[in-house]
């Protein structure tokens, strides 16, 4: 399966990263190689095998609906680059 430069651009866009022309070409080649390697698995017959998304066999882990104290707002806002009046401040979002 060949990954085109166009697909690399789409993935970069979804991930909000900027790539140079050289990087796009490099990544297209590398991803094509990686996927080609993984492709080998398709030779196996997995019709009878259930997909496995979890590495453990844990299930039904819940917590009770109980309140715990939240963190102090000041402490939390200090983690962000910018804040105002108790809010996080972000670049203008156009609705």
């Amino acid at each position, binding site marked *: 399966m060949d990954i085109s430069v166009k697909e690399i651009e789409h993935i970069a866009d979804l991930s909000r990263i900027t790539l140079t022309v050289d990087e796009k070409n490099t990544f297209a080649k590398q991803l094509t190689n990686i996927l080609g390697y993984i492709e080998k698995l398709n030779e196996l017959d997995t019709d009878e095998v259930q997909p496995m*998304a979890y590495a453990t066999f*844990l299930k039904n882990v*819940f917590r009770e*609906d109980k309140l715990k104290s939240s963190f102090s707002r000041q402490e939390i806002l200090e983690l962000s680059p910018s804040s105002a009046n*108790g*809010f*996080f*401040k972000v670049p*203008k979002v156009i609705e």
Partner: protein
Amino acid sequence: MKYEVVMGLETHAELDTESKLFCGCSTKFGSEPNTQTCPVCLGLPGVLPVMNKKAFEHSLKAALSLSCEISEFTNFDRKSYYYPDLPKNYQTSQNYFNIGNNGYVDIVVKGKEKRIDIHNVHLEEEAGKLVHPETSGANYSLVDFNRAGVPLLEIVTQPDMRSVEEVESYMQTLRNILLYIGVSDCKMQEGSLRFEASISLREEGSNVLGNRVEIKNLNSMKAVLKVIAYEISRQSSLLDKGEDVLMETRLWDDVDSVSRRMRSKEEAHDYRYFPEPDLVPVWIDQEWIDETRTTIPELPVSKRQRFVNEYTISDYDAGILTDDKLLADYFEECVGLSQDSPKELSNWIINDVLRELNERKTNVQDFIVSPKMLVDLVKIKPAIGSSIAKDVFVEMINTGKTAPSIVKEKSLTQMGDVSELNDIVAKVIDENPKAAEDYGKGKKSALTFLIGQTMKVTKGKANPKILTEIFKEKLSAGSK
């Protein structure tokens, strides 16, 4: 050209829990911004979400109440996208194994029942809230994450609705079910109930679906009804001109009452769903389903049917009474106290109680007239007549006193015994045939005269209001 409109609805309902879906932060509405947040709901690195059991059980209860097939295996997926109200850059939701699938809701439109199919019911987390500063030229937005992580139920229908009335009835029926089973307060003014609509038109009689337009940002039922009217007119005028309706996502602007195209970049979603590795899957066995089923109360549709059968009231009246669970409970409490007059009690509730509740903007739970007080009023009514009963009702609301004590205090039953008064009135009419005849010919003052004569006989003890009623009834009966 004539078009048929084809609609489906996605409903988001915030679930009623104390704490958020994956952390112990409060879900309380209206607190100071960012005072209900922690590393989990802010998506800081290294945190581990743990599912709120109540939120999951609420979802299961809702899925069962909407007649869904319950998945034996369910899990959660990450839905990735970037938006400043989403701290983790993905929303924890369900995509591959929803809690419920293939359900339905029966609605009634113009007396006809129709089944709306539910595609799926799933559980996800709420996003934060963006605030756009009023100051013109401000180059920033503000974010409050108090809502981020509040449990949210999403209910998705098939494109089964064909008219505004059907959509309205579906929304009301669904809201009513959620309120009955107690999983959401459905307060639209607090954003607890929101909608997204998909609307397409096709030539009447055609089987091919037209291009579908999705509308986001519908924060009330009213907005949904407005957007449907707007889109029908927008899309049909495009089609009339021979133009295509674009398959797109639009945002509803409630202030200007228009829908606007979202910029294509915003709608170019590629969510890259994959199983959430930080949460373990949930297996739902039959025992859990059966247990949950026992917690579901009688739902509005069956209650309505039972009211018609059990109390012989009209389907319309039963519909009004069961539209609000608290009102239905109020009615049943009244009927429990006095089995002989369900029809009259239903009339009082629908006409008088509801009017007062609307005027006073209160709900039946906080209403000063208790079921016992209403029943007492209905019991004493024959002795005072219906128009005085209405006055007594108002007095009960204003003073909180019971009907018998108001009647006693104001001596409303002095000579209020209708049968006794009936005899006296009959006698006065006999003795004053001329006045009776004049009244029959339309002379209003004749009635005043007759009442005056009766007052003389009763030494002023008769209630003029009751007298007027008796006279009117007798004289109109006599003139036939």
